[in-house]
């Protein structure tokens, strides 16, 4: 399986990545190579192997349901590009 230049543009758009038109071919080639590498693993019989969800052989630690965070809005909003009336402001989003 290979990645086409059209697919590169689609993935870039979904990930909101800006790429230069003259780089599309190279990305298509590089990504195709990665896919080919992964495809080699398909040759291995993995019938009885449970797919790994995480490289660590451990399970999720759970937290007690307790409110431990305090309001730090003022602090957080000093690093926001724009905030007003307690709200974070972003360019107008029209549905």
């Amino acid at each position: 399986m290979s990645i086409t230049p059209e697919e590169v543009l689609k993935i870039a758009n979904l990930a909101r990545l800006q790429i230069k038109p003259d780089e599309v071919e190279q990305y298509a080639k590089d990504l195709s190579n990665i896919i080919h590498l992964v495809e080699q693993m398909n040759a291995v019989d993995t019938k009885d192997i449970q797919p790994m969800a995480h490289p660590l052989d451990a399970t999720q630690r759970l937290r007690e349901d307790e409110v431990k965070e305090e309001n730090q809005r003022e602090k957080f909003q000093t690093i926001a590009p724009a905030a007003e009336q307690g709200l974070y402001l972003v360019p107008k989003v029209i549905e």
Partner: protein
Amino acid sequence: MQWETVIGLEIHVQLATQSKIFSGASTAYGAEPNTQACAVDLGLPGVLPVLNKEAVKMAAMFGFAVDATVAERSVFARKNYFYPDSPKGYQISQFELPIVEHGKLEIVLNNGECKTIGITRAHLEEDAGKSLHEEFPDSTGIDLNRCGTPLIEIVSEPDMRSAEEAVAYMKKIHSIVRYLGISDGNMQEGSFRCDANVSMRPKGQKEFGTRTETKNLNSFRFVERAINHEIERQIDVLEDGGEVVQETRLYDANKDETRSMRSKEEANDYRYFPDPDLLPVVINSEELEAIKKELPELPAAKNARFKQSYELNDYDAENLVMDKDTADYFENIVNVGNVKAKLAANWVLGELTAALNQHDIEIMNSPVSAKMMSELLIRIEDNTLSNKIAKEVFHAMWAGEGSVDEIIEAKGLKQITDSSEIEALVDQVIADNPEQVEQYKSGKDKVFGFFVGQVMKLSKGKANPQQVNELLKAKLQ
């Protein structure tokens, strides 16, 4: 052509935890904007989500309540999309290995018919924040307090065939999460909301037609209306020789119509992958057994018990158990006041429900408490009040005019059961209406009702109707 409707629902339920699913920020509703959005909720660099134990337990409880498989191992995944109310650029959800799979639920339709609806899965995920478009002329304001509130998304099989079935299913899910105490189910505040997938196919055809998804329906009435609209719209398109486009639509309650949300179309490629910040969630079988044992009595079991111990019919039992608070209220009246179950059921589902609906009040906040209601019904059973006068007393209690006995005393409403007193009234009515007496004696039985009415009127509704009937019958012989 005869069309068949196919409906599947996705229901989002906010879990009633104190803190967020992956952070220690509060989930309380209605706080000042962004005062409950911590570094984890904001997706600031370097933070790590840590899973809330209670959210996992609540999801498992739901699974057991709908006869589903609760997975000993489930995995969180990232659902990637960009929208300003989701600051990380992805939502943490579950994809390939959800915590709950293969459940089912029985619904009862208005005609009494039962139907089983399959539940494909229910997975844990985090809620997004809110976008406020109206406040500023050139910007959108973002409130991230809701970000990270735990949700379960419950996905049904495409088993429903009408808006009525969809609403019945949604009400049943609502009832179950309230019974389990895993959500407040408050639809106005968005704790319980629904997306409806609707498609049409020619009757008898096996393959599904193209479906649309109508988003964010936050009342039972809107679900019914939006689905019926979508059915009509799709039939119109198909019968004009057109094709239904697979798309997301939005229901506009003000205009009562659905319309296309083109902005989200291209985003329907979420590129899920396991979230490297979270390890697989493992609940061992002993823990699962413990959760199962803690489950409260659910609507179906309560329904069966109500029919058995209180000898209620299907209608009364189903309507009483639908809402847990209503069922508790009913049981309080019957057990505390030792009132006849049928009388209690009639009053709870009749006068009380009507008054609650009219004033838009939840039963737990009813101005007439279960104790007051039982005192009222005792006064009907001991013949102090007729059913009709009891309604007057009920509304006086509702308005805060005092206890049953205080109101009876103050308004002089005590039922007349003294037979000599009733006899005097009966004699007077007979004496005043010789013409009707003639008619009755010549065989016009219908006139009997007239006499009863006159006696009741003369007694200002206070005469015991049964005694009035008996005495009139005897006197008119």
